[in-house]
């Protein structure tokens, strides 16, 4: 499987695994909370809660 590195989950503070090849600005989801996280730096990987895009979601 693809290489991973660890980063801190910005919501729970737990260590999570993220793909090693993420890029700044990419949106991934936390395996702990499922929340969308924005990659704000890559070396080391730092994450931030991504702003919600309510519009896209049904109704």
């Amino acid at each position: 499987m693809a290489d991973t590195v660890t980063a801190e989950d910005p919501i729970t503070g737990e260590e999570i695994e993220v793909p090693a090849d993420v890029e700044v600005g990419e949106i991934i989801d936390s395996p702990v909370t499922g929340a969308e996280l924005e990659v704000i730096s890559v070396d080391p990987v730092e994450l931030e809660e991504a702003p919600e895009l309510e519009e896209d979601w049904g109704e």
Partner: protein
Amino acid sequence: MTYTASVVGGSGFTGGELLRLLAGHPEFEVVQATSRSKTNKTVGHAHPNLRNLDLRFSSPEELESVDVLFAATPHGISMESIDRFRDAADTVVDLSADFRLSSESRYDEWYDGHERPELLAESVYALPELNREQLPGADLIAAGGCNATATIVGLLPLVEEEILTGDEQVVVDVKVGSSEGGAGGGEASSHPERSGVVRPYAPTGHRHEAEIEEFLGLDVSFTVHAVDMIRGASATCHLFPGEPVSKSDLWQAYRGRYADEPFVDIVAGGGGVYRYPEPKSVAGSNRAEVGFELDASNKRVVAFSAIDNMMKGSAGQAVHAANIALGLEETKGLELTGFHPVGAP
């Protein structure tokens, strides 16, 4: 006398419903329905129920002169286009949220910057049960939000009778059908994903809270769930009055308030299959059903209301308000009975 009317956004869901209502309305003649994506196609192309309507969509850029223009466009379009709309028509009835609130500050609290804030004071909120006396002669009318309408109609008697004074916690748990999302639809509203759901689609922070706050004077705790129906909005309001209240107090409050309303029925217990308000009972009609139950054990009142979001929650309310604005008989063109049985309407 017949009034001419146009529907901007005629290819959408509420636009289609307006066309259905206006086509069957004895005092209106539809002269234009706009669509950018379906220009020159027949109305029946978008709305298979209207195959026999002899009308083609035209561009919203070229508006005919009419008595009444109904705008059924997404949020933000009407405020941009309002001068063109008012040039084209004496009366504008807007179905979007653009002109519902009464001040720029309230608007900015919930939305994102109004282009024509000075018109907010001028526009009239459509809901006749709330606003009947302000409608005659109004020339900029804002039809209420569907979930707000369901909630307001359900709680109004309690507020007016001061069973609710504004200090209580009021939980409003709403269930809505998929037509609320309009004709667009993305992945979340595709049939495989949207069927059979109980989906908390607006857990908190739904913008219709703004209207409820403004017109009922209540802060409510508002949560909206998508459920598996197409038409319909149902509001269940849980509230804890400061003073003890009896079932007969409730009956009096609701009967007193709504006895003369042509489009509100009280359904609160009784026998048979349909004992409380249900979207199915009102589907296709402009009726709202309201009802209540008392939970003696924890001093709670549960108030229920149900509407068809395409009708009382948008197009029906718009026509109702237009009738009043123009001095027509209120119920004209809206004497439509619902169905039984009816599925997921």
